[in-house]
């Protein structure tokens, strides 16, 4: 896939040399600007917007490939906000001035899936380190677009274990509203798939980097790779990641049915894979010298983004129960 190669190249050229920035939270403004300019220059900008409208017009699979590769650097994590800049949620793509501003200024619009109608607040929302707009979506009620000032009015952002922040919305904040439409649901499913792909990118790096380490690190006169306790960890990560990729394949075919599943599974698989890598690297795995502890803290956010895992599982369980009962009836 050409986009995948281009994305790998982009990570190698732009993100990898700046990886030391991962110690800084949030990214210094100048560095963030520089990276975004380079991102734009490389054509990874407005990824889902059609080419005729100034976007890259990527297919969902291509965009997922970009997210997966971007996540092989901790700078590409959601909480860092770099991936959001320049992207326009589907329901907002008709608003030409919003699109224009987003493309030009590199605006960051955060999408958040509401589990209750907006008016029935409060809503605990997790936002990444930098953002400009908040687009809240409820499948039955539609969307609400809040500006940062509007959303923050009279409130404080609370720090989290990662680079993102907690914002408590009351449900009486004022913003533009959007009717419930499939395009909104599709946008959410698309973002879920991107998160799944991203999580697998982080998992892949963690797993692959642990391999040479196990082959060179000696304990009791033998490399770790010869210890089955360690091999088992590697095998568990590899096979779970493979199942997640297969499920992601389903999600591309049918995003609305499988997007949330693919995300829930891939993120959990990635969290476990990263955690095993931390264990394999021992003390150094636990320190910030290596990126894995950060991967874990940041990916933990993905369990709540765009479909809280508990909610996803509940909904899936309800649906499955209904289908199993129907199946059993005749």
């Amino acid at each position: 896939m050409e986009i995948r190669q281009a994305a790998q190249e982009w990570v190698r050229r732009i993100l990898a040399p700046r990886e030391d920035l991962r110690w800084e939270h949030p990214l210094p403004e100048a560095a963030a600007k520089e990276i975004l300019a380079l991102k734009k220059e490389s054509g990874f900008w407005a990824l889902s917007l059609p080419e005729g409208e100034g976007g890259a017009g990527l297919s969902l699979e291509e965009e997922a490939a970009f997210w997966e590769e971007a996540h092989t650097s901790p700078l590409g994590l959601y909480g860092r906000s770099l991936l959001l800049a320049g992207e326009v949620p589907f329901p907002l793509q008709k608003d030409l001035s919003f699109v224009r501003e987003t493309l030009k200024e590199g605006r960051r619009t955060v999408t958040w899936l509401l589990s209750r109608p907006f008016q029935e607040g409060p809503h605990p929302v997790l936002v990444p380190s930098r953002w400009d707009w908040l687009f809240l979506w409820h499948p039955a009620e539609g969307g609400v677009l809040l500006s940062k000032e509007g959303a923050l009015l009279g409130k404080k952002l609370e720090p989290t274990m990662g680079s993102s922040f907690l914002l408590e919305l009351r449900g009486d904040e004022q913003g533009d509203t959007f009717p419930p439409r499939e395009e909104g649901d599709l946008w959410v499913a698309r973002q879920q798939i991107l998160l799944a792909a991203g999580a697998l990118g982080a998992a892949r790096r963690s797993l692959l980097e642990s391999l040479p380490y196990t082959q060179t690190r000696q304990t009791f006169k033998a490399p770790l790779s010869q210890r089955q306790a360690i091999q088992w960890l590697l095998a568990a990560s590899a096979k779970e990641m493979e199942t997640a990729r297969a499920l992601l394949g389903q999600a591309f075919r049918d995003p609305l049915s499988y997007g949330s599943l693919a995300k829930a599974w891939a993120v959990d698989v990635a969290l476990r894979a990263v955690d095993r890598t931390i264990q394999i690297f021992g003390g150094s795995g636990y320190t910030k010298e290596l990126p894995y502890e950060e991967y874990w803290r940041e990916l933990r956010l993905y369990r709540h983004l765009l479909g809280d895992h508990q909610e996803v599982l509940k909904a899936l369980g309800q649906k499955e129960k209904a289908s199993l009962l129907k199946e059993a009836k005749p």
Partner: protein
Amino acid sequence: MWPLGLYWPYQKNSWGEEVSLRLSPDVERAYEQMKAFVETYLQPLEDQLPPFAQKLAPEKARDVRRALEAEGLVGWAVPKDLGGHGLGIPGLCAAREALAHTTLWSLSPVLGSEPPILLYQASPAQKEAFLLPTLKGERHGAFALTEPEAGSDAGSLSMEALPVEGGYLLTGTKVFISFVEESDYALVFARVPAKGVTLFLVDLPSPGLEIARIMETMGGARVARLEFQEVFVPTERRMGEEGEAFALAQHWFDVDRIALQPPICIGASHRALSLAAKMELLSDEEMGSWTLRLEAARALMYRAAQEAEEGRPVRHQAAMVKSFAVELALSLLDRALDLLGPQGYSQRFRIERYRRDIRRFAIAAGTLEIQNHIIARGLLKGYSRPLPGEVN
């Protein structure tokens, strides 16, 4: 969450190979047809399955076989020109997933036999003598690899095949061999001195070959210990060349790891979840969590099945599919047993039967530890594909 998808557009597999897969709608139909048969015909017979055997009374078994044939529900992976459905490995997986909705699934070699794919590589005369009758359900084959001192480490087996005029004399012991009572031939692995492990088609019974013991197990399976004392096997019954056994058989082992046990694990898990839904045993969230894992297993199995169908080496995928599916089924069945309490322990809901039968998958046809070993070794060596002739 069935039906499964027809397209797998995105992914490369873990080793960077493009997987652009397409499952035919016929595969979904195979599942539906088989499921309907299982529900109407096989589930009502479940009470007739003895607790420690996997057989029905002979007349009953014949009836079932006839009904299956009459409805065209055999030979899913068998090529069309041999009278099968030609649905390949994915079709076999789908049919077996449906079959797993009855505890009678374990009769499958007798009921709806698919010959070992290895037999398609046999010589024309061997095909005539073994493959074709197996397809018709007239002959059944056992598979004899394991020895007392060579289980996981099958490559170290020691049964000797001594070359003599017109053939070989096989001497040694095989253990844990399934379906010996139902079979009239066996695929036997034996070592030709200085040449290596070689594959033979041996008639059951044969002079010098004794069924020394039939052992009952935790589940319905019964396994035999076979003693070979200078059993003569003519040269025409040798498959492939001397020393070629593992090279010939490895792809078959791999495909079986995808298509034999995992669909049973997935189907049985599905049935357990059905029961849990009916009896309201699980919270929505827990139901969702099991469903999610099941979907993941299914997605991987069908993808690997499709890869195998395209003739790719699938050693690692197969190891992943097997170990993921078996672990999932065992843990789900254990959970169901817990939730059902004393009733679950009884035979009423059949979960106990599934749990006892499926426990063998963690051991037979490559233990779970060996699957982990295969996956880790593949990763560590940085190659995606096994080296030729590598055992396991």
